[in-house]
Each structure stands twice: as C-alpha cells, then as structure tokens.
C-alpha cells in the first residue's frame, strides 16, 4: 500500500507542477488543484498508513492517528476557498483583457 500511495502522490505532484508552469490560467488552476490533492494525500499519510483501524482510542483496540485527518480537513477547506477565489480572479482577468494568457495586455 505504501508503494501505491507514494506513486500516486508523486504522479499527482509531477502533473501539478507541469501544469503550473503553463502560461494560461486554466491549466494553472488545474495544476494547483492536482498539487493540493497530492499535498492532502501526503498529509494523510504522515500519520502512518494503517488498515481497518478507526481514529478512536479504545482500550486494547488498534487505532490510527486522528490528528492528520483533522489537519487534512483544515487543508481541504482552505484549499477549496483559495481555488474558488483564483477561478474568479482568472475569469476577471479574462473579461478585462480578452485573453487567458497570464501576461495578457490591455484589450485594444
């Protein structure tokens, strides 16, 4: 399972960084979204990967670390808000310049 998670995180990060380096706003937003997926998976894995273990501490029962789950939840909410704002900003740049290039000039 470790190998699958590691490959998934690596692949998502690589695709995210590749898209982030594009010069158009739409691939940029997709890239940031992929990057945040990778980061969330990574945070989740930082509490160690355990199968069939609830994030509750009970006597004798096996449990998984609940803290990374709380961290991921916070990170997802923040990332979602940021992406929504970025989409609005990209739309505004598109309507002001008529072009989705990140270095677009004023509409003639």
């Amino acid at each position, binding site marked *: 399972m470790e190998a699958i998670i590691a490959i998934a995180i690596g692949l998502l990060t690589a695709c995210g960084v590749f898209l982030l380096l594009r010069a158009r706003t739409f691939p940029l937003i997709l890239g940031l979204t992929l990057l945040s997926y990778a980061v969330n998976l990574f945070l989740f894995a930082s509490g160690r990967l355990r199968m069939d273990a609830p994030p509750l501490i009970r006597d004798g029962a096996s449990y998984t670390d609940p803290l*990374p789950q709380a961290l991921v939840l916070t990170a997802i909410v923040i990332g979602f808000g940021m992406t929504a*704002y970025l989409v609005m900003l990209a739309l505004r740049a598109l309507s002001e310049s008529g072009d989705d290039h990140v270095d*677009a000039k004023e509409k003639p």
Partner: protein
Amino acid sequence: MTQHAAILPLLIPFLAALLQLAAKGYGIAVQRAIGLVGASLAVAAALWLVLLADDGMVRVYALGDWVAPFGIVLAVDRLAAIMVLLTASLAAGALLYASAGFDQRGRHFHPLFQLQVFGLQGAFLTGDLFNLFVFFEVMLLASYVLLAHGGGLARTRAGLAYVVLNLAGSALFLIALGMLYGTLGTLNLADVALRLQAPEIDVAPARLACMLLIAVFALKAALLPLSFWLPHAYAAAGAPVAALFVIMTKVGIVSILRVQAIAFAPAAATADLLDGWLLPLALATVLFAAIGALAAMRLRDLTAWLVLASAGTLLVVPVFPQADVSAAALYYLVQSTFVAAALFLIAELVAVRRGDVADAFLPGPRLHTPWLGLAFLLAAASAVGLPPFAGFLGKLMLLSALRDSGSAIAIWSVFLFAGLLLMLALAKGGGRLFWERSPKHPHGNTHPFCWRRSLAVALLVSPALLLALFARPVSDYAARAAAQLHDPQTYVAGVLGGHAIERETRP
C-alpha cells in the same frame, strides 16, 4: 483580566470585521467608525501587551483550555508583543488613510482589512506551527482580495501571479508540516524544539522538513530567488493596502528568526541549517533591490524595491545567533516598516496632485504642498539611513553588532554600497518629483487638503523622528526581547510547563 490580554489583539479585529459585515446596510460611515475604533482599541491592547510582556515571562494562552502540546496555544514573549504593536499601529495609520475615500473603490474593504490584521496578529502570536499555517492563510486570503481592490487589469494580473505563487507556497508549507509531524509527532513549536534534541529521531527527514519550512518563510520574506513577485505586487496595490503589506515580508523574517532561535539552533541535528547559503542570498537580495531601485520609474516602484532591500538586510540576521544582532535587527525592522509604509502613502498623495504624470519621475506640474516634500525628505532620509533619523541608528547598530563576525567585510561593503545606490535613487526621484517643472503645466493643480490622509502620513512618518529621539528605551526593549528570544529553554518550559510527555514509538 490580564490572563486574557494575549487574545485581545486577535479578538478586536475579528469582532470589528463581523460587526462591519453586519453593519453593511448602514453605509460606509458606520463601517469606518467601527474600523477606526477597533484599530485604536487594538493599538491600546497591543501597548498593554508590550508592557505586560516586559516582565520576561512567556505568557501562554491555551485556546479552549487544552494545554500544550495537545491544544493550540498563543505564546506571547517580548518579540511577539513588539510585532503586535507594530502591526496594530501600522494598520491604524493605513486605515485612517483608506477612510478618506479609497475604501469606496470596491466592495468589502473594511471587513477584509480587519481580517488581514487578524491573520497578521495571529501569525505573530501563535505557538503552534499548523496554527501558523492557518493564520498565514487567513492573512493571505484577505490580502488576495485587498490587492485587487480598486480594480484595473494591472492589479488583476499582479494578483493572479501573487495568488498562484502563494498557493504553491502553501502546498510546500503543508508538505513541510506533514514531514515534521511524521518524523517528530508534534507541531507545537516548543515541543518540536524538545523533540529535535531527542537522540532517536530520524535526522534526514527532520532536516528536510525544517529546510522546507525555512524555504516557505523565505518565500514570504522575499529572499532573492523567491523575490521577483514582490516589486510587481506591491507597486500594483493601492496605497493603503501596500502600506499594510509592508508588514507581510516581516512575518516571514520573524518566523525564520523564531523557529531558528527556539527550535533549530539548539538541536544538534539542525544547528547548521542556515550556514553557508542564507548570508550570500540575503546580501544578493540587498544588491538586487538596490539595482532595482535605481531602475525604478515611479515612486511606488521605488518604495517596493526599498521594502525588498530592508527584507534582505534583515534576512542576514538569522545566520548570527548573538542577541545583540537580533536586538539591532528588531529596532531596524520597526523603523523600516513605518518608513516604507509612509512612502507608499506619500507616493499616492504626490500622484493625485501631479495629474497624468502621476508619481513617475518626470518633470510635471508644481506641487503646492511643502509639507508633502518635507514628509518625503524625512521618510527618504530614514529609509537610506542618513543621520539623525531612526534608519541611521538602526543601520549603525546592525553594522556594529556584526563587526566581529567572520563575514563582516562582505556585509559592511554590501550594506554601505547598497545604501549609496538607494540614496542616489531617492535623491534623483525626489528631485524630479518636487523640483523639476515641465513647461506644459505652468501653474499646477491645486488639490483640497484632506486631514485624514495628512494625519495618516504624519503618523507613519513620525516614528522616523520619534524612534531616534527615544532610541534608548526602544533599543533597550529590543535588547531584552532578543535576549529572551535566544533563551529557548525558558520559552519551552513556559509553553510546556516543564513536564515531558511520554510517547509511544511509531512504526
């Protein structure tokens, strides 16, 4: 009551923002009144915190009464108190200026402004690294919207680059936190400091996590390979927004200073983390900023480069663990923040009086406002470090504290040469703005006097004089703050209460 002093600088802007949102229907005057009352209360609360913190205790405020390291705590030492007071005063000045009309150029200026102050204060006060991330995001989200306030393609484009860069930075921040939690099992700064000294930790991932954390803070502080966003974003922002943004690079610098002094330097695994690379990069940042200032065509661009120069100057400091270097840096930080903020405001006041040439360094109409020229002279002289102003004292203290270090020659020559270049840039620009007239505009525009804008500029320029007049008490306080910062045992004991936490080892 005194035990709740630590939360006041957070509660006041947050409540003000909520009230302003609720009072949206009652017109801008009510929002302004709430904002200005809130900003004044925040200054008073911060002043109280500065006085309280001077007893040398680390005040810990456990949110929800969950003790560290299980709950999130606010930790107030002298350094945090100074930064809180600086932020509150800067915000009060910028808000007063914005209340003269800038706040009507877009929607929701006032609540966003208060939320950004909330994020800034939280970043200085928190004692937990994940909570630091959350406060960074609060501060950044408000700053994204404030940067675009006022509209125009230049602001949207600058905003887009700024948002994308900071979102990538946030992703890096989370990766660093994940690695830190994975290797050390804690995110409380004091507990991280303890765990880094434990012999059984995995050194390589811990070092990598700490390094990533420093890289994220360096992005906020605009260290050279990560600093190209700053001149663009700051010059595009509206004047009062840019004035508040000046403190944002300082958040990165203070974060580096704090994690380095409290957690990284005392642990053998991470003691040499900053050696060899931070000093050359910081000096390169100073030179880069000085050259950029020479090439700037407008006063607001020039001021953005000045912000970068002072950030580079301050980034030299974390390399040296001596308390006297940090003390000098704190004094320098306070005056450079005020002066740069004042210059952003002056740039806009000059721009509206010069019509279509605005604040570009071109001959233009005559300015009928000698007080504006005087304010510019004061701020510019302090920014480049000319006596008798506070900038001179700050630079002098910093240079003399660094005199005995091995790389003193490099630091002295870069600082002094960059100072000369900045002086040339400001002298050239100021001469063009205030003295040269173009034959096209023989009479010049008159502009109605606005007491709010003038008072805001006066408030932000006056520290250049006041900090020089009262240099002794301020630098003494800074020296005590630095001594406390470089005494990590007291901080750790103060936050964790002296009891070690037993842990089960993880796979």
